């Protein structure tokens, strides 16, 4: 065992006027905008529109209601697919992890599907779910669920043996070992799975809307992209990026709140 000694008071300190943790990302964005402005001044707007034009597009598309509507059309099937994949992923991850033979039975399919690009299943999705909401949800689901299963399962399989033995030595029955020891120790794994699954799910919904449903942000990207209206094309792209960042921040915040007991190095 390694003695992990942490300072007893939180090290975060009080936020100062110029906090480097905030400064670095802001600097990064400013640098990007500057470089963008510089390059766009030298090339045609068809190749790279100026940041100001993209900002104008963002405002116009928001004011016309087109962008908010598309965001909604994208967010709803995305969330449906994510909720489904998180629930199914956790249940199957626990199931395959806890019941070893069930795991052996199911594992081959999990690894085959995980290694299959979701896009390769497109014909099947067409045939089975059509081109509507169900097809989009199932595309998101298939993009995200295997990450959730594999991570949850890994969590069950990494449970510390000493911890289980200690609980048993104290008289815990199987249900108590699960409730007190095994299930909670999968939570950090579930969260790191969730982080990856959200990324895959966002990709999934955009791809599904470009290739299957012709709706939402995906369709907007395709439409303006093919029309070579790059200023209008960048607007939904930025909106999607912001959405993804917000989701990530949300997960981060939940993680920090839930796992205060962890001694982290960074």
């Amino acid at each position, binding site marked *: 065992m390694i003695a992990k000694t942490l300072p007893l008071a939180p090290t975060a300190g009080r936020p100062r006027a110029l906090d480097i943790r905030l400064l670095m990302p802001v600097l990064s964005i400013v640098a990007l905008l500057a470089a963008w402005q510089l390059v766009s001044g030298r090339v045609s707007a068809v190749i790279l529109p100026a940041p100001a034009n993209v900002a104008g597009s963002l405002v116009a598309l928001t004011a016309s209601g087109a962008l908010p509507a598309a965001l909604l059309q994208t967010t709803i099937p995305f969330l449906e697919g994510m909720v489904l994949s998180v629930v199914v992923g956790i249940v199957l991850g626990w199931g395959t992890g806890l019941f070893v033979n069930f795991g052996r039975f199911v594992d081959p399919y999990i690894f085959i599907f995980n290694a299959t690009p979701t896009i390769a299943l497109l014909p099947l999705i067409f045939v089975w779910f059509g081109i509507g909401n169900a097809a989009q949800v199932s595309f998101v689901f298939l993009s995200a669920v295997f990450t959730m299963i594999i991570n949850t399962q890994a969590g069950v399989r990494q449970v*510390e043996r000493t911890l289980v033995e200690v*609980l048993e030595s104290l008289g815990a029955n199987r249900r108590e070992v699960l409730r007190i020891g095994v299930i909670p120790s999968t939570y950090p794994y579930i969260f790191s799975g969730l982080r990856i699954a959200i990324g895959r799910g966002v990709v999934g919904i955009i791809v599904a809307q470009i290739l299957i449903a012709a709706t939402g942000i995906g369709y907007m990207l395709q439409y303006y992209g093919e029309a070579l209206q790059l200023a209008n094309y960048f607007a939904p792209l930025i909106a999607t990026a912001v959405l993804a960042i917000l989701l990530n921040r949300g997960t981060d915040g939940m993680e920090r709140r839930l796992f205060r007991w962890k001694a982290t190095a960074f």
Partner: protein
Amino acid sequence: MLTVVQDLSLSVGDREFVSVLGPSGCGKTTLARCVCGLLPVARGQITLDGVLVTRPSPKVSMVFQGIGLVPWKTVRENVGLGLELLHHRKLAAADREQVGALLALVGLKSFEDYYPSQLSGGMQQRVGLARALVRHPELLLMDEPFGALDAQTRAILQDELLRLWGATGSTVFFITHDLEEAIYLSDRVVVMTRRPSRVKQIINVPLPRPRYSYDARSEPEFGRLRHEAWETLKEEIDSL
């Protein structure tokens, strides 16, 4: 199947402090897990108060070298677990009082809301000790509990253990590979052979108690016992 412990016969008396000393890999941990009821014995039997041990008993508490605190529970919750799993119900007010008393006894009252990762190794093992003792065990099983600690912390916890043992009156069955630790703590030291291990010799330790109240380690008798134990143990290590 690997035969780890064979033809081992040993009885431990009420309120006695007995150490098992043996070369590493001789099956000491296996023995502890069998006595605790975590591991079934292939042949022979282990009895506690005349009753066959087949599963962990509420009369026994075990302290592990790996400690095995629940990382997402606070110090107080970890100690409370000792009672929660004894009674299979949520803690009552009286239970919480007991937990508080035990935390005070091991000197961790002001750390009760800390998580294990915020404590040093020595403090973590104090929590492990409190979690075991809050159950008022008749038998306290200890499997190299101080093996991972630095020398100073180990010495402090050894004294602490003797003090707690005096206060609780449990029987202690202590597994160690540390010869001085075995002599300092015990009434009897059981020296094991290498695997498959059996009892090689039992050394009585007539040093007066309480030993922490004077420097028991510097007694000539301590030196003589250490020499005797080392000679016995060396044969086993040499012939590995």
